[in-house]
């Protein structure tokens, strides 16, 4: 039972973080833009969500919209640095990411913002639901995990549905093509700079939303919470790809990225059980990504 609950916990975290992985999928995979903004925009989404709930007593779900918008703006800044000022892609992202560290501290006025739901008028997206359940159920931490999982699943489904729709539209097709063959898309009359900005806005909006969701579930925002987000996002994508068949459609690709995120969380839960420190996780994640990325190279060498 304990292990089962641990897995459910991992799944619910995997779903919430998976939305960040979708954002990374859009910038890295679809737009082919190595976007380093996400470490900053993830924390930004988290901080914004926490502050709106704690200081302004916003409905936590509304605070997620603020997180989404904030993330999108961060992505837009990176996009403008790159397209207007011609700063290389990676550096543009790093510049935004670094400034977001200061900005996030400004937003919170301190290094972290706990969400104390015992106070009047302060709720998280989870407690808003559990508070309405009968006492004997709502007190159990299992209930918390289940509710978080369901909320995560609903958000994931909405995000995938919206992305599937958008990337099927004229604009979405042009965006996909921009990542695929920029010169051609320009020759077909598309302002590819605008497309890049749009892709970065969408990607980082999702990352910000995910940051907000994670903060809501852990009841605290921390200025350092975004560190390593990109690598976790990439790990989710590459793990998802291991399971992904070749001829699957776009929605399935997004779905498998979520699956990758869930499996990543399960791997993390397992290695923590095995006695690894949580501070070892960043290296472990980096190794997963490096291994996954080297598989095609190594197997090709084998053939040569």
């Amino acid at each position: 039972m304990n292990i089962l609950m641990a897995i459910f916990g991992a799944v619910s975290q995997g779903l919430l973080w998976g939305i960040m992985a979708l954002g990374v999928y859009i910038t890295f995979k679809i737009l082919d833009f190595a976007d380093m903004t996400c470490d900053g925009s993830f924390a930004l989404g988290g901080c914004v969500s926490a502050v709106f709930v704690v200081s302004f007593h916003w409905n936590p779900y509304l605070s997620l919209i603020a997180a989404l918008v904030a993330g999108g703006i961060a992505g837009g800044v990176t996009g403008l640095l790159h397209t207007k000022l011609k700063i290389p892609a990676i550096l543009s992202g790093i510049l935004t990411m670094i400034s977001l560290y200061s900005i996030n501290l400004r937003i919170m006025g301190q290094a972290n913002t706990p969400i104390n739901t015992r106070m009047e008028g302060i709720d998280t997206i989870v407690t808003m639901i559990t508070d309405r359940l009968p006492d004997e159920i709502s007190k159990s931490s299992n209930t918390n995990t289940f509710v978080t999982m369901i909320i995560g699943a609903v958000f994931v489904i909405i995000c995938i549905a919206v992305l599937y729709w958008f990337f099927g539209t004229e604009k979405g097709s042009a965006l996909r093509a921009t990542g695929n063959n920029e010169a051609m898309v320009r020759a077909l009359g598309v302002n590819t700079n605008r497309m890049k900005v749009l892709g970065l806005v969408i990607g980082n909006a999702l990352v910000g939303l995910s940051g907000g969701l994670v903060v809501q579930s852990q009841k605290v925002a921390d200025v350092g919470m975004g560190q390593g987000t990109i690598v976790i996002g990439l790990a989710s994508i590459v793990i998802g790809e291991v399971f992904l068949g070749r001829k699957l459609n776009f929605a399935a690709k997004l779905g498998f990225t979520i699956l990758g995120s869930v499996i990543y969380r399960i791997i993390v839960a397992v290695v923590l059980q095995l006695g690894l420190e949580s501070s070892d996780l960043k290296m472990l994640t980096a190794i997963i990504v490096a291994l996954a990325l080297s598989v095609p190279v190594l197997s090709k060498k084998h053939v040569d």
Partner: protein
Amino acid sequence: MLNITEVYKTFNTGTINEKKALRGVSLHVHPQDFITIIGGNGAGKSTVLNMIAGVYAIDSGSIVLDGKDISRQPEYKRAEFLGRVFQDPMMGTAADMEIQENLALAFRRGKKRGLSWGITKEEKELYYDALKKLDLGLEERMTSKVGLLSGGQRQALTLLMASLKKPKVLLLDEHTAALDPKTAKKVLDLTENIITEHQLTALMVTHNMKDAIRLGNRLIMMHEGKIIYDVSGEEKQNLQVSDLLQKFEEVSGGEFANDRMILA
């Protein structure tokens, strides 16, 4: 209809790599001209097409299309009027997207792209018929990724994409040079058909002098960033490869034409 006047273009100005690519190019293209462009390596042929398309800004001069000065317009805006096929078959299509998706992108050239569906049912029928005319069996593979096609098939598709929405000018930059001779001939025949059928105005760069003479109604030769020879009509019909070689020797000061031109 397309008036190019005294266009200059220097790359890497002020560095040791400075290269005067165009030195006062003027060309007046008439409606339904099909102009073939020849010249040695680095003569500036591709640069002329790139200047028309707006890939790089010109240093001075003007490019006027149907009375409208487009020389300061960004590339994506001019695209509304231009169809382009490149030398590299990879360049004209999006490899990771389906054949029909590529066509749908091309079909919307110059139009505002909104949030309506990227490809409609009626379009698919249109594409089916258009692909069928290529006679490559692509109409049965409309949902295949373009990356799976051969170089020749991709060039044929790019040609179709360039003409799907009738361009005011079609720009072809050695679009058969990367293909084997048999495929090159097929793509060239297709080019001729499409230009005739849609009554297009076209500029085609080629290294093959026989093709340059055989195709089109007008031929220009470039050398060191200038147009040094411009023939059309009957005079062009009667040209021989030897005439062109002689012309080339004259301007290059006795040096023989480069290998690629002789081979052709």
